[in-house]
């Protein structure tokens, strides 16, 4: 934290951008709490504009109901860390892609039972038994970002994080 002298003459500490990212990495996705907002790759930019912290967020799907909750969670988390002046910006383009999921995020998804996205368009293997003998049940799933698949070896249905 670098001390900053404000016009009023008092000294405050302004959190570094890296610190803010670290805090945001502790905020879980509201629908898939096993991954954080930074794992999901939706935090596009963090910077200080004078005394105001600007956090730029990109939506995953344009109608995802989690978007407004995510903004609320970001605000709550940063206010709890003492950030007083905060602006949340929405950035649509370039559009979010599952390429922005972190490696750590992909591993967490798989451990949680959700197959991570693959460029080939379907899951690589069953997140439970690793079998590659799979079938798609539905192009859509319990959230806009997922589809439903089933493993034909262990017979368990599972979520697949769609690749977009």
């Amino acid at each position, binding site marked *: 934290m670098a001390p900053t002298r404000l016009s009023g003459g008092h000294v405050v500490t302004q959190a570094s951008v890296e610190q803010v990212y670290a805090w945001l990495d502790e905020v879980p996705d509201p629908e898939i709490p096993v991954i954080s907002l930074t794992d999901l790759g939706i935090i596009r930019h963090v910077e200080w504009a004078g005394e105001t912290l600007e956090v730029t967020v990109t939506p995953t*799907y*344009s*109608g995802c109901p989690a978007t407004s909750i995510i903004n609320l969670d970001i605000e709550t988390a940063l206010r709890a860390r003492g950030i007083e002046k905060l602006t949340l910006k929405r950035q*649509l*383009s370039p559009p979010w892609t599952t390429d922005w999921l972190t490696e750590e995020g992909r591993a967490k998804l798989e451990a949680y039972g959700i197959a991570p996205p693959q460029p080939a368009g379907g899951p690589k293997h069953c997140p439970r038994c690793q079998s590659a003998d799979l079938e798609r049940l*539905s*192009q*859509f799933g319990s959230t*806009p970002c997922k589809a439903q698949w089933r493993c034909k070896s262990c017979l368990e249905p599972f979520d697949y994080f769609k690749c977009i």
Partner: protein
Amino acid sequence: MSTLHDFALRMGDSTLILGHRVSEWCGHAPVLEEDIALANTALDLIGQTQLWLGLAAEEEGSGKTADDLAFLRDAWEFRNALLTELPNGDFGRTLMRQYLFDEWHLLMLQALQGSSEKRVSDIADKAVKEVSYHVERSRDTVIGLGDGTAESHKRMQDALDYLYPYVGELFTPDAIDEAATNAGIAPDLASLRAPYDAALTATMAEATLSLPDSRFAHKGGRTGKMHTEHLGHILTQMQWLQRAYPGATW
């Protein structure tokens, strides 16, 4: 109002009304997977509506929000294509309408990615990913049901015959569309017809369905001149909460 406003309103009203129509299936679809798929499609469309109507409201500059435009206008102020307001009918007709809209929607968004207006191309960049997914599903379903049992084939052919006269409106520009084209905001609607026809011909052949010969087109939704009697009924459902409890929020 600016050309950009008028253009964004037309896009947003079509996605809003279709999104609402599709959402009427929630909890009523023939199987769970289809219920989820319909709800997800509706959700995408309503999300895109927030972007388009948000842009229209911004251009209007009177402090209104996307919600104000969605919930506080009456039928004659809506600019959606007639196709989107038609009743759902059976599951087959709903998916046929979705397919006929999705193919147009995809071509439109692909063209809008090159819009001279960044706020438009930004929305198109986002929406095109979702709509590519929609058309994949609606196309597969039209083929599956068209080339299915005798009963499903008949229902899909009936749906196509009923809906096809509402397709032409999507490709018929008026003065507002021409202004948007001249400004580089949007493509010439008529230019989308050839690739649309090619896609439909291929799909219907695979679905063993016959495209009607007549190009007769019902018009009046996008211009607001004459909606069908169905739009007012949609609004009574969609708007009742804001009408009964003005300004209510979560």
